[in-house]
């Protein structure tokens, strides 16, 4: 097994695969590994009549819905990290748990993809403000794991975590941002919700917008976790550009989830999300689970080699559309919300 992990790690570090050749070989080996070690996955393959030993196309490996992480233990080895999804404000739903045996692989993924996607050209270390909690506050958050690992090689002295036990420390965040206005480019790590709260505060402050140094970046991820706000991700990014005095291409959007180890990123300022060379995606017809044509809406599925510690082929709850070699997010499958006698989002008043 060490060999497979090492080969996957080398493939990720090389970062120049094209979803053929070595990737196909590694994907088949990873699917076999899952079949041998993850009992629920073996049963699924058997029921579907899929023999991973004969697999020559990663697309033929059964995909596991993310909801399975809420009810099943999908781990190929003893977990060394346990990540839990944060859930939504609705409260009654179950949370996903990713028993992760190979956090080293997670670190490799971050090292191989984060800097290229999120840092200004040429930057190695820079001041970072994190609106994502650190690991002392959210030990089971995969996002906090990621942010902590980003801090190690990239955070310059003076970088700050602006989340306390009670929530986001907006005073600290605003003070920190205003203090950076004359310095070198900075990086802000935030969820969409945290960023919205920060922007609301900046808008309320009498001192007016901030002008962060040119080249500064904002890393924005996730949705609003069930919180109804009068905004959209696009509007948040527009406001961030205005209120933080950012370049049009300063906001990088990340797409990740507890159930995956790798992430997709937008190009700076863009909307379309690109997966790394070790995580191909497909857009599937909900009726047939066959791949739809470019431009058609369907369920997003990913084959993440770095997920070898659980299940590589993941069927998400997200709807998207393929645009060339990238995808655009369009929403989520129905299922988590109560529908009865309720208003549509358009009807919501101010919160």
């Amino acid at each position, binding site marked *: 097994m060490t060999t497979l992990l090492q080969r996957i790690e080398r493939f990720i570090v090389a970062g120049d695969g094209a979803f053929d050749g070595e990737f196909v070989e590694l994907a088949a080996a990873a699917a076999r590994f899952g079949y041998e070690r993850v009992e*629920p*996955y073996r*049963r*699924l393959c058997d*029921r579907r009549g899929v023999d991973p030993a004969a697999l020559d196309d990663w697309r033929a490996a059964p*995909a*596991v*819905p993310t*909801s*399975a992480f809420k*009810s*099943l233990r999908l781990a190929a080895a003893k977990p060394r990290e346990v990540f839990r999804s944060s859930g939504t*404000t*609705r*409260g*009654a*739903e*179950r949370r996903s748990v990713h028993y992760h045996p190979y956090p080293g692989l997670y670190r490799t993924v971050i090292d191989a993809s984060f800097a290229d996607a999120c840092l200004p050209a040429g930057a190695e270390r820079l001041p970072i403000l994190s609106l994502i909690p650190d690991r002392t506050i959210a030990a089971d958050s995969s996002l906090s794991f990621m942010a902590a690992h980003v801090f190690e090689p990239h955070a310059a002295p003076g970088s700050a975590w602006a989340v306390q036990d009670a929530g986001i420390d907006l005073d600290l965040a605003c003070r920190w941002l205003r203090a950076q206005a004359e310095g070198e480019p900075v990086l802000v790590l935030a969820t969409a919700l945290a960023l919205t709260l920060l922007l609301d505060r900046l808008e309320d402050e009498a001192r007016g917008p901030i002008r962060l140094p040119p080249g500064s970046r904002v890393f924005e991820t996730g949705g609003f976790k069930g919180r*109804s706000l*009068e905004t959209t991700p696009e509007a948040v990014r527009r406001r961030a550009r205005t209120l933080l005095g950012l370049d049009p291409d300063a906001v990088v959007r990340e797409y990740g989830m507890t159930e995956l180890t790798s992430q997709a990123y937008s190009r700076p300022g863009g909307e379309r999300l690109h997966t790394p060379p070790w995580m191909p995606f497909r857009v599937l017809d*909900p*009726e047939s*689970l066959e791949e739809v044509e470019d431009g058609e*809406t*369907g*369920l997003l599925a990913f084959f993440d080699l770095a997920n070898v510690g659980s299940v590589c082929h993941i*069927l998400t*709850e997200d*709807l998207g559309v393929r645009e060339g070699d990238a995808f655009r997010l369009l*929403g*989520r*499958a*129905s*299922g*988590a*919300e*109560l*529908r*009865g*006698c*309720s*208003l*549509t989002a*358009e*009807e*919501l*008043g*101010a*919160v």
Partner: protein
Amino acid sequence: MTSRVAELAAAAPSLRAIPTDALLAAWNETLTAFLDANSPERRDLDPGLLQSTGLSPAGLSHGLRSIGEGMLGDAAAGELRRPHRQREDGFSLVVLPAEPPGLILQSLLPALAARAPVLFKSSRAEPHFAPAFLAALGQRLPELRDAYAAVTWTGGDEAVETPLHAAARLVVAYGGEATINALQSAAVGRLIAFGPKLSLGWVDPGADLNHAALGMAFDIATFDQRGCLSVHAVFAEPHTAPTFAAALATTLAELAVDLPPGHSSAADRAGVRLAREDAELRGLDWHGDALDAGTVIVDPDPRISPSPGLRTVRIHPVEGVPTLDEWTGRLQGLAVAGRLPARIRRAFEQAGVSRFAPAGQLQTTGAAWRNGGIDLAAEFAGSAIRESKFKRGLNRAHDRYADAFRRLAE
């Protein structure tokens, strides 16, 4: 809007002057017309309503009959003859949901009974039914025209909503948690909020399973499972559950012919596909063919979760009292097949279930149904407030006398 609101606010005295028989006749005639898919009113209404609701024509007619048939004739007369009356000037605001259509009937009849003028806010997603119904009612009884209106605006427009909330005697809102939170934080005087809820089913081991399946299938399929009285999950004893699930799946498939599912979105279809994939991975027993024609999953996990829609239902095998804690306050109704033991009923009541009905009749609400136990006619009239003030006064008097007796005894 301002002048319309002023008209509404001043309409209470003329409403009180309308004889109940005239009101009853107009209500019955109008509702009968709206329950008849061949009436001129429905021929005008249905194209827009079908478009906005996405229901099939048969599904729309069935759903409207479920809401409306129990509000005709003697049932309506019983409500309209109740003594509650709005004595003061002023109007109430009712915020209607996008779905299911026809829900205005459940607040309009009590408002008529209380002779309480109401401004209805129709959803932009379904702006057809309420104004059409009020227009038809006003044609039959013109005195009602000044007292009832349905309008549409985008929710959250403070210029419209702030003065309306401040002026309304009572706001009744059907909505999601965010809507309710928004209204609670707005300057609303009295607010009655009907938040999002789901309904469940119970199959007694002694029940005729085919009969139970037929009834439950109707409670699932009515309004394509989009109402708060739609059944999302059913509890059955372990040895009954697999047989019942198979019978229910067969019945749902047959019902999809008579009561075809309406339009389904990619998100809805994706939700059902994921539920099926999840069941497959977990090795659960599940039934279903076309994604929108019904999916039945036997889920040994006793915890319930909302259905993704499109007539998807989970059957939870349970022995004894089901696990409901996580859902307290979010449950609306229980469709019962067979006998419901008292201790089981109590568990559901404690979790907030306010409507118990035989399977097949859960969504067939009548005029006397009090959603959440709330008597809307009394609320519109304001007599609920007067009653509680009276009770508070009585309690204070009782306390004073109790103190006096205690002192005397000492």
